[in-house]
Each structure stands twice: as structure tokens, then as C-alpha cells.
């Protein structure tokens, strides 16, 4: 890190807080907000000159230097491979999410939390226009509702009726569960899914419902958002149970129509996901938290005798004391403070491969913001994970209008393999700019031969890649001991639900008995919550 004269750092007063948070990632910001709401005094620091840490949205050049910087400690981002093209100009008007591709369900807890905390006053959302799935080498829309099934052109008639029947079953199960009916064979014609079915793998349940493979894939990967190939049986890393599958569908369907002006289940924040941690920081600031950016923590102070945490030394040399500390996942924790417990111990993949593409045309005409899923095996015979892609447009103010950013990701064990999937997904979606000479040649040849061929090709023309890059991010779990908690890195999921529940656990560990951002914490703003939370 560049030498900054110590005189540039502000002096912090007071020198003792209930909590020091050194990171403005989403999880850290939530903890700062929650602690402030609970009446704790909070010092919130970040070594970067911007908010958000690993959850930030950065201008393209900054993004590139952030993930390629050798100084970003040890290999959180690796294998960065950017296209040789020059950055599209004006490059600073492209805002790239570090957490991408990511979305919020209209009904998920993150949205509730935004409303509850009043953070929704600082963020606006736009809705995702359509949901696609890559199937048989083509992009098809995901028939995720009765109306979408009706309109879908790729499903056969029997498939439509099978899919609708399945949705009706799930719907009836969900509504009976919500109304609290416990009897398994519901009265009034409602049917509940029996308990033993809920425990079985979701894929088995779908087979039991006699759904054909295509519909199974649609439900598993494009609606229930399963990451790993579910047909593999025991070798599958994370088997989605029927209960989990149905819960996701329940969230999905309750999201549709929650906000009158959101067309689908998903929303995306204007100016990128970096806005979310900032919004929670503002909530914390309102409740009295003190903010200092560009202020790295350079050392952790421990009590000589007990070897317990007592405070931190900042880059300014100042020592600040607190009873609790929250750190960024990139922070190298001294061995003296271990052993540590991770919040979620799982055999998750250790990496997520990501891609960022910039194009000048939408993947689908008439849609600006699109979620796209490549189910396992749709790209490669050996592809064992789903690849998700999210196209966002100028209308969410992350790029100049008329241009599009496409984020891709897939969890992986082996960085090279993950990147290979990302690259083949990119190839499936876009024409690379390196090839234009060839394609022009091919076209002129065909023009002489037949009239029909070129028009057919024209219809299939893919958007052209203006710029792209692929990289691998390490997944790190949240962990804690008595006084020091470490926030998680962004996970490989589409939404923030896991990050949120991890954060909640960290908070409960820090302040047992305190409520995590209680219902009335934004009482003064509660009136217009519904409008504010909805996309415009």
C-alpha cells in the first residue's frame, strides 16, 4: 500500500467504542447499523476510499485494478483475464458490481430489512424484465407463472399442462402452509405435499410428479436456482431438498406482484449493488455511528495477560479501544487470536468463477434487464454447475444508455474449470470482436450462393462483445471468536439471503439478546415504506 503521510489521517475522538467495524461490506454495514440501532457506540472504518469493500460497485478501471491489485491481500481474486480490447469509453461510467450477478427477490428478507431499517430511503430499484434459460443452444423464456406458461412458445401443450399442474400443487401447498393448516390432506380441495416428500431430493420429487427432463431443469435451475447438477445423485455437492425447492418457489411466486410496478420476481438497485451497504451505513450514521474512510487497521491490540482483544491500531498510529471488533474477510488475523469458529461449516466450493461483459445490444429485444441461467450440461457434457448471467442496462444507471453489462458466475472447485464454463457461456451468448474479419468473409461468400441463408443468420446474430474479463474469487466464510468477528465474502448465490442469515448469526454472537434491526427502528419513516421500497 502506498505510503500516506500520517499527518493526512484525522484524529478520532473518542478513543473508545462499543464496536469497531473495519469494512464497509454489506455484512459489516448491517452489523454497524444493527449495533447502532441497539444503542451501541460504533466506529466504522474502511481502508478504501469508497464504501462497500467486496460488495461495492466500481467504475470499470477501478474495478479492474481492484481485482488485479497484488496488494489486495492474499489471492481473494485471482486468474484475472481481461480481453485485449481497450476499455469502452467513457470507462468510468461503467459501474461493475463486485457481487454480480446478483438480484433481490421482491419478497426476500433483504427487502424487508431495507424497509425496516429505513435504508430503503436511500436506494431505488428497477425490475428485471425477463428470465431466460439456455436450452438446446437457444435462449428460452422461463415460464414462471400461469401467464408465462400460456405465452411460452417453446413448451409443448402437454408440457404446459404438466408444469401448470405442478405449480398448482406447490401453490396449494404453500397457501395451506401459510394459513397454518397442519393436516396433511387439506380440506377444501387443497393438497399438501406429504412430509416424507418434503425430505426427499427435489429432483426426485419432480420425477415423482412425472415432469419431463426439460421442465425438471427449468424448475431446478431457473426457478429454484440450484447451483449443482441434481441428477448426479450422491456425487452432487449440494442436493436441494423438496422443502428448500418449494421454499424458493414460494419466495419466487410471492415476489411476483409484491410491488405493482415490478414486472417479475426480481429487482436490481439503481447504480448497482454498492448502494446497499452505503444505505445501511447511512442508517448507522443516523443513529450516531462515526465514519472514517481510507483508514486501514494495521494491528490488533491484545491484553498482555489474557491475550484477549482490546483494540486496534490504525494506519494513523492512533490506538482505539472497543469490546467488539468486526473485520473484513481480507484481514490477516494473527494466529494468537485463533482458534476461530466459522458460522456455516459446509463443504461449499471454495471458489466462484465470474465474468463481466460489456455489449452494445440486448440479449433479447424489448428487455433491458435479464436474468439468464445455463443449466448444468447445457454448455458442456461435463458441466456440473449452473452458470448464471445477469444483463443490466443503462436504465439502472450502471452504464451509458444503449449499452449493457452482463455479469456471469458459477461456483467451482477448480479455478481453471470454472473459468472455462464462464468463457463458454460468453461464447454462447456473444460474438467476439476479434473475429469480425472472418464473419464478413463468410457472409460475402454465402450471399453469392443463396438468398435465404444470410437472412436466417441475421436473425440469429448475437450481441458483440465490446470488452470482457473473467476472474476467480475465493469464497471465505464468516467466522468469530469471543470479541472478533470476520465478515463473509460475497457468496455464489443469486441473492443475499445467506449473507443476511450469516450476518444475523454474527450479530447474535456479538450481542446475545439484542434484536437484529427490530421492526420499529425506522418508525419515523414507516408511512411511505411501501413506495420507497418498490422500483420506480
Amino acid at each position, binding site marked *: 500500500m502506498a505510503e500516506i503521510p500520517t499527518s493526512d489521517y484525522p484524529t478520532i475522538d473518542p478513543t473508545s467504542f462499543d464496536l469497531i467495524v473495519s469494512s464497509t461490506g454489506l455484512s459489516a454495514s448491517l452489523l454497524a447499523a444493527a449495533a447502532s440501532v441497539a444503542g451501541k457506540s460504533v466506529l466504522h472504518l474502511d481502508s478504501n476510499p469508497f464504501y462497500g469493500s467486496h460488495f461495492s460497485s466500481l467504475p470499470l478501471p477501478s474495478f479492474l485494478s481492484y481485482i488485479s491489485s497484488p496488494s489486495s491481500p492474499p489471492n481473494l481474486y485471482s486468474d484475472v483475464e481481461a480481453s485485449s480490447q481497450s476499455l469502452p469509453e467513457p470507462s468510468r461510467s461503467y459501474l461493475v458490481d463486485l457481487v454480480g450477478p446478483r438480484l433481490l427477490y421482491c419478497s426476500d428478507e433483504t427487502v424487508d430489512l431495507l424497509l425496516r431499517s429505513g435504508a430503503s430511503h436511500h436506494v431505488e430499484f428497477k425490475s428485471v424484465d425477463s428470465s431466460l434459460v439456455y436450452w438446446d443452444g437457444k435462449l428460452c423464456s422461463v415460464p414462471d407463472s*400461469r*401467464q408465462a*406458461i*400460456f*405465452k411460452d412458445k417453446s413448451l409443448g*401443450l402437454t408440457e*404446459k*399442462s404438466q408444469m*401448470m399442474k405442478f405449480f398448482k400443487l406447490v401453490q396449494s401447498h404453500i397457501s395451506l402452509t401459510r394459513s397454518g393448516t397442519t393436516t396433511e390432506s387439506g380440506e377444501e380441495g387443497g393438497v399438501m405435499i406429504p412430509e416424507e416428500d418434503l425430505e426427499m431430493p427435489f429432483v426426485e420429487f419432480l420425477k415423482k410428479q412425472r415432469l419431463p427432463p426439460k421442465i425438471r431443469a427449468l424448475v431446478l435451475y431457473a426457478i429454484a436456482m440450484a447451483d449443482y447438477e441434481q441428477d448426479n445423485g450422491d456425487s452432487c455437492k449440494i442436493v436441494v431438498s423438496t422443502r428448500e425447492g418449494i421454499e424458493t418457489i414460494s419466495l419466487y411466486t410471492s415476489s411476483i406482484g409484491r410491488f405493482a410496478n415490478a414486472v417479475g420476481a426480481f429487482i436490481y438497485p439503481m447504480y448497482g449493488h454498492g448502494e446497499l451497504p452505503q444505505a445501511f451505513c447511512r442508517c448507522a450514521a443516523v443513529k450516531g455511528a462515526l465514519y472514517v474512510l481510507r483508514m486501514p487497521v494495521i494491528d490488533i491490540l491484545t491484553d498482555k495477560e489474557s491475550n484477549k482483544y482490546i483494540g486496534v491500531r490504525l494506519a494513523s498510529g492512533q490506538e482505539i479501544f472497543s469490546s467488539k471488533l468486526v473485520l473484513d474477510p481480507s484481514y490477516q488475523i494473527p494466529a494468537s487470536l485463533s482458534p476461530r469458529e466459522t458460522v456455516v461449516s459446509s463443504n461449499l466450493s471454495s471458489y466462484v468463477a465470474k465474468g463481466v461483459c460489456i455489449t452494445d445490444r440486448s440479449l433479447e429485444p424489448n428487455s433491458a434487464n435479464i436474468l439468464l441461467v445455463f443449466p448444468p450440461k447445457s454448455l458442456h457434457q461435463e458441466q456440473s454447475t449452473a452458470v448464471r448471467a445477469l444483463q443490466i442496462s443503462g436504465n439502472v444507471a450502471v452504464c451509458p444508455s444503449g449499452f449493457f453489462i452482463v455479469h456471469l458466475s458459477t461456483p467451482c472447485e477448480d479455478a481453471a474449470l470454472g473459468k472455462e464454463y464462464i468463457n463458454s457461456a460468453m461464447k454462447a451468448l456473444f460474438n467476439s470482436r476479434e473475429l469480425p474479419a472472418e464473419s464478413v468473409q463468410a457472409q460475402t461468400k454465402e450471399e453469392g450462393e443463396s438468398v435465404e441463408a444470410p437472412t436466417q443468420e441475421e436473425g440469429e446474430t448475437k450481441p458483440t462483445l465490446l470488452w470482457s474479463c473473467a476472474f476467480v474469487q475465493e469464497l471465505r466464510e464468516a467466522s468469530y471468536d469471543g470479541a472478533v468477528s470476520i465478515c463473509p465474502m460475497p457468496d455464489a448465490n443469486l441473492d443475499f439471503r445467506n449473507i443476511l442469515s450469516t450476518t444475523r448469526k454474527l450479530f447474535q454472537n456479538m450481542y446475545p439478546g439484542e434484536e437484529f434491526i427490530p421492526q420499529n427502528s425506522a418508525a419515523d419513516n414507516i408511512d411511505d415504506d411501501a413506495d420507497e421500497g418498490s422500483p420506480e
Partner: protein
Amino acid sequence: MHGRPRKATKQEDPAAAAAKSARLRELQSQLLHFHHNRIYTKEAVSVSSKLLEINPEIYTGWNYRKLAFQHNLKEVSDTDTDTDTETIKSAIEDELRMVEVALRRNPKSYGAWYHRKWILGQKLVLANFDHEFRLLDMLLKADARNFHGWNYRRFIARLKDVSEEEELKFTMDMINTNFSNYSAWHNRSMLLSKLLRKKAKGFHEEESILSDEFELVRQALFTDPSDQSGWFYHLWLLDQTSTPHKPHLVSSWPSDKLNIEISAQFKEKCERFPIIFCFNQQVDGVNLATVTINSKLVSSEHITWKPLSANNSRKSKIWVGFLENFNKYCDNSEGLSVEISVHCCESIVHSEFVMKLSHMDHQGKNGDGFEELFLWDCPKSQEINPYLVSYDPWRLRVERVEEDAKWHLDTLSAEIALFKEMSECDEDSKFVKLTLTRLLGAHNSIKSGGSAYFEEILKLYDDLIKLDAPHYRYYRDERSLVLLDQMTSSKDSLVEYCSRCENSSFSCINPQLCINFSGLNLTRIGFVERLLWVQILDLSHNNLTSLLGLEALQLLVCLNLSHNQIMSFTALEPIKSLQSLKVLDLSFNEIGSHPVDTTRYLCSSPLSHSCNVTETMEELARENIKIGDFWEAILLFESLQLAQLDMQGNPVTNERFRVLVEKVIPCLKWLDGKPVR
């Protein structure tokens, strides 16, 4: 708005409710005061506004406003010509605003919608269509199926002269938003019909358009078979596919090339000979100008044509004309040869027949027949076929099929295959079953010799009766029609139900052939066009409640309706026109069982001045019989010349009733199996 349980209205605070009703009463009496005294001042009109804002259902309020509007408009145009349009404009705007307020209170207020239409329909100034369409969008967004909204949209579209194509696109948008929308599907069918009829640009090829629509509605049906709206549209499409657009003749009596042998007795007794035409749909205009007769002896002036329909409409599927005094012409050895051409319904239909005196005259008794009781136990006989060969009502039908029906048959077959598949995975869906049944029926009706699906259809109706008990009457009716279709579909099948009547002594045109449809659970009568020639018909031991259709059987002499469920004399209206009917068995029905006859108002009666009080009625009245209780019976029996009547086992029958019958039918010889007098 739809499919959601209605919330109980909130219990209002009794004091507030009382205050509200007091205010309503006060406003209402003020309104009536202004209305009666024709006071149309601003203050007076504002009272009606206040009233209608609270309760848009007060029609007098709307009517008062219409009068006020006209009155004030007239005053303006009388006094001042310069500010005319501006004043009119603001007056119209006031009315529209008022309606909007009322509609916000109740979007389904007929009076308010009508008022809006009335105002704009005057076309005093150019309507602000943008505003109207915006309003409609708002309304249909809140409740996409609101038929008031759809009605109003049609009105506005017509007023603005919006093209049908554009409106068709709008229905598609609405269906894409939510296909569970009867109004959208309905409007689509209306618009398509118009466009197809006009042969508008892009709508020349009806078959390809309809194929696309089948494809569209299939998406809805398969996505959610339990939603009814798509099924209704499918029913419309099926109708477009299976029903020929143009009316055509389906059968006639006497049929083409028929040689009729007439017994001497028949010739003696009957002065009028009926000629009957049956069309596939209601037609009008069968008259002297459209029917030409080519014959040495008779000319078209000898015949007057009249429609046979239960109501007094000028349109009918069945037309009858009587050849008067025909017996004069039958004597010569060549017989009477007649060639008839019908020019109505765009094509010309020819029919030629010959009437001759029968040589194998009945070794009959003298007198006018019916000296003996007619009995209904006709034994089955072998020698029936020859006659049925000579009379062939099935030929016309075969001819028609040859009209290029390929697309229709292909479409129907494809749909049948599809819904069979669907019914396999969805066994309990009544819509799937019913549609399949209708498709099979339509296929049968188009395909020449189409009898392939009868058993299947009958079985499907049996299933439906079990599956959907609340609608069993409908299924039973449809089932009866299918059964009749099957029985009359060909000579071979009809022979099974024929027998020869040996015991009768009366005169017949044909060898005394009895059609026996007894004990078949029939609830309705149909396919009469194939039975026009029948003279003896046994419909006993069925479940008939209605006799509609029987009016076509003009040659009927003996009719057995015993052991059915006929509830009233008004239900017998169709047989009133059967002039040759001599023997009528109505025993063991339920005539008189129900004190209130709801169909009574449909029939002609002295009460509705559709017929006059007759002499017989007056005579009966003198004998202290309450004709008011029996006028249907009197009118019925008066119009028939029955020789034999059986009324046993009906609640209405008693000694007094017998007296009445004997009075009304002077030529009656047998009543309830006993000789009269």
C-alpha cells in the same frame, strides 16, 4: 375482482347510517320536486349530483340530468350563438365528470355508464378520445373482466372509428396479460367474425385464421384446463368450424324422386297435402316468389307457405305449404307430377315427386276409420325395407358433405386427437370430456356416413352425467339428440325401430309403418328432418318434458306420448299444428301436477290477446266450467280433430275434465279407451 370471496360489508355505525339515509331521503325528495316542476337551474342540478354521488343507482336522477342537459342546451342555443361551443363543451365536461365520480363509487352502475354513452352519443362536440381510453385503461387494469368497461370500449371504438384490427390487437394484449378473461375472448370472437365476414385485408383465408386461433386457445386450455374462459372461445371456434355459414336445405317432404302411393281413403279424407322444407338454420323468405312449382295441374298460387316455429317469428328452420284440393288431380292414371324449386338461401334446390292412387287399396272398412280403438302393439315385421328404400331422406346429407370439408375434418380430427390425449392424463375434467364429446359430434355431422363416434359420444355423456351431476339435464338432452341421430342416421339403423301396424283401420299414405322410440330415456326430440314422412310414432316410456320439434311431423296420425314427464298443456303447443293427428295418447304424464306453469306466457292465449275467445269457450263458460283454468287445453283440443284421446293417469284428469274434452272435441270417438257417448 373475480374468483375472490366477497367481503362482508362493514357494519356502519348506526347513527352514521341513519344520518346518511336521512340525507339521501332529503336529497331524493328535492330531486323529485325539481323533476316534477321542471326546474333545471344550476342549484337544482347540483342536488342531483350530490344524490348520484352517494347512490349512482337512482335512475330518475340520471334521467333528470338528461332532461336538464337538453333543456339548458336549448336555452343556450336560443339566446347566444357565439359562446355556443364553449358552453356546450363545458356542459358536457360537467356531465362526464359527474359520471366519473359516480363510477368511482360503483364501477358497475348501469345508469352511470348509460348516461356517459348518451352524452357522447349526441356527438355535439368531438369527444376527447384520449381521455376516454385512458379512463378505460384504468378501469380494465383494476378489473380486466368488467363487462361494462368492455361494452363502453366497444362504444368508444365505434364512435372514434377505431379499426377492428386494432381492437383485435387489444384483445390479444389483454389475453396475454391474463387469459382468464371472458370479455376479451368474447370481444375477440366478435371482431374476428366481423373481419372474416368483411374479408378485410389479411383476413381472406378464414381457414388459416381459424387454425391460428385454435392454436392460441389450445395454449390457454392446456395451461389451465380448469379455467372456463378458454373453453367458451373454443366452443365458438368449433361452431365456426362445424356449422356451414350459409343456410341450406337438409330435407324435404316429399323428397326428390319420390313416388307416393295414396290410398283411396286418404284421398277421400284429406283435402290438403303438406309439402315440408327443413333447413339447417332459421331462414325467412319462403314464399310465392321464391318457390316455383312446375306441374301440369297445380301452380304455385295453390300453396301458401308458413314457418313452423313455436314462437311467432317469421324465421324458421321448417316451412310448410299445403297443396289444397290435391285429391282432384290424383285421379288420372299418370298421377300428379310436381317439380318444385326453392330459390331462397342462395342456391336453388329442386325436388320432383309423383303422387298416385294406390292400386293395392286397403281392404278397408267403410266409414271414416277409428271405429275401432287404435292399439299400440305393433308387431315387428320383416317387409319394411322396400318402403324405406323408396323414401330416402339421407341423400341430401351425403351430397352436402362433398363441399370441400377437408380442412374442417382435418381440424376436427386434430382437435379430437389432442383432447383424447388430454382426457387420458386429466380424467376428471368435465370441460375436456364435454369438448371432446362436441368435437366428436361435429365430426360425425360433417363426415359422410359419419357414425363412427356414436357409441363413444353416448359413453362420454354417461360419464358426464355422473361426473357433473348439477348439469345432468343438459347432458341428458344432448344425449337424447345423439341417440336420435344414431337411430335415424341410416336406413339400416332406422329399420331396427320400425314395425308394421296391422290393426288400424284408418287411411295412410304409406304402408302403415310405426316408428317405435319407446323406452329410450329420451328427454328431447331432434333430427325430425329425417322423420318428416312418419305417420305413426311411439315415444312412450321416455322422459320427455318438451315436444319441441314435433311440429315438423305434419303427416303424423297417431302419436303415443304416454309415460313421459309432460307437465302442462302448454308443453303440447308443438302438436297444435299437426292437422292430421287423430290418435293421441297422453296417459300417465304429469299434466296438472304443477300449479304454476312457467311456460304459460310463451303460448298464445286470450290473456295475451294473441287469440280470441272462441264460441266453445263461451259455451263452456255457460256450463259453469272455469275456462280460465283450462284455456290451454281448450285451445289445444279445438285445433285438433282427434278421434281417440287417452288422458288417464294425469293429475288434471277427472270427471269434469272429461266433460270438457267431450265438449271441445265433438268428433272424438274414444276417450281413455272407452267409447264416447
